[in-house]
């Protein structure tokens, strides 16, 4: 009988009871006579049992509390106001696109010149800012630009988080 009819890969599937009844009975018959396969199966069984018996830590008992807490925070932040910020993120993207498509190359050219002459530009900005009077209009303009920047940033972050959460599930 020298030759072994069993393939170990089938023994592994046999061990998992994931094999057709026909192949199963072929293997069982073969196992009666083949010591080599019998030992191989026995070793696979031991290994499988050893893995099954490995200790697993218990899950954190506060998991439910944590998850529910997080869901509730989300719910609070899912107000129309927040949706507005989300759409603000999209609006900023659209605005960016509108500016970039027709004026992209000239904008890049301008940036290139600005960066190339960074020291001169910085000097100019500092000089100019001293000359601009501290009028309420200028202050208000500055505040509006800053608020707009922060809102856009927040909008992007929300947009990203929402997309990241929806990404994985098919």
């Amino acid at each position, binding site marked *: 009988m020298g030759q072994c009819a069993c393939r170990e890969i089938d023994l592994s*599937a046999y061990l998992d009871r994931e094999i057709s009844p026909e192949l199963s009975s072929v293997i069982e018959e073969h196992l009666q006579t083949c010591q080599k396969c019998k030992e191989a199966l026995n*070793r696979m069984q031991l*290994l499988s049992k050893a*893995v099954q018996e*490995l200790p697993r830590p218990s899950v954190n008992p506060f*998991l439910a509390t944590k*998850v529910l807490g997080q869901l509730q925070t*989300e719910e609070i932040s899912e107000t129309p106001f927040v949706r507005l910020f989300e759409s603000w993120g999209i609006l900023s993207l659209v605005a960016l696109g509108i500016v970039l498509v027709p004026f992209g190359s000239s904008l890049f050219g301008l940036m290139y010149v600005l960066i190339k002459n960074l020291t001169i530009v910085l000097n100019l900005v500092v000089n100019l800012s001293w000359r601009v009077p501290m009028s309420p209009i200028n202050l208000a303009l500055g505040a509006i630009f800053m608020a707009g920047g922060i809102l856009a940033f927040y909008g992007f972050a929300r947009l990203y988080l929402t997309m990241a959460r929806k990404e994985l*599930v098919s």
Partner: protein
Amino acid sequence: MIDPSLIEQVKAGNLTAFEKLLQSTQQKGFNIAYGILHDTLDAEDVLQEAYLQVFHNIKKLKTAEAFKSWFGKIITHLSFRRSKEKGRFKTIPLHEITQVETTFSDNPETFMVKQEEKEQLIKALKFLPDEYRAALILREWEDYSYQEISEVLDIPLGTVKSRLFSARKMLFNKLKEGDM
């Protein structure tokens, strides 16, 4: 199996039902994440994110029977992602695996898994590429069928069979080599 009416309640946004679902599945989910990541804190983070995804996406689940594979898939994907973020994700080309020449009939006297050798076994498991460890953990710890594993890992049934066999072969080989 999960009670279909419980799934329906969760789909309707019922938080009490969701908590019940979480309580009845959390240890299973944790075992999968822990089996892949072998780090309690990482596994907890993964589980937390997984349940948020479950809550937000459960409407996409077609049947209650599909929950096991679907849930396993979310946990496994998030665990792989975490493993990659930590720079620990291991993968090896297929030809290297098939080159593992060991068979289970080699050197019987050197192979044994005794109580005191559990440490060795854990080390050997960590040595496995993540996708192989995942398949083995799903099978041995959580009793996923080949069909379910193929859904979780997005691989054909035949690949599940060979992946589990290779995982066992690599484990066996590593244990035999000893000194890790």
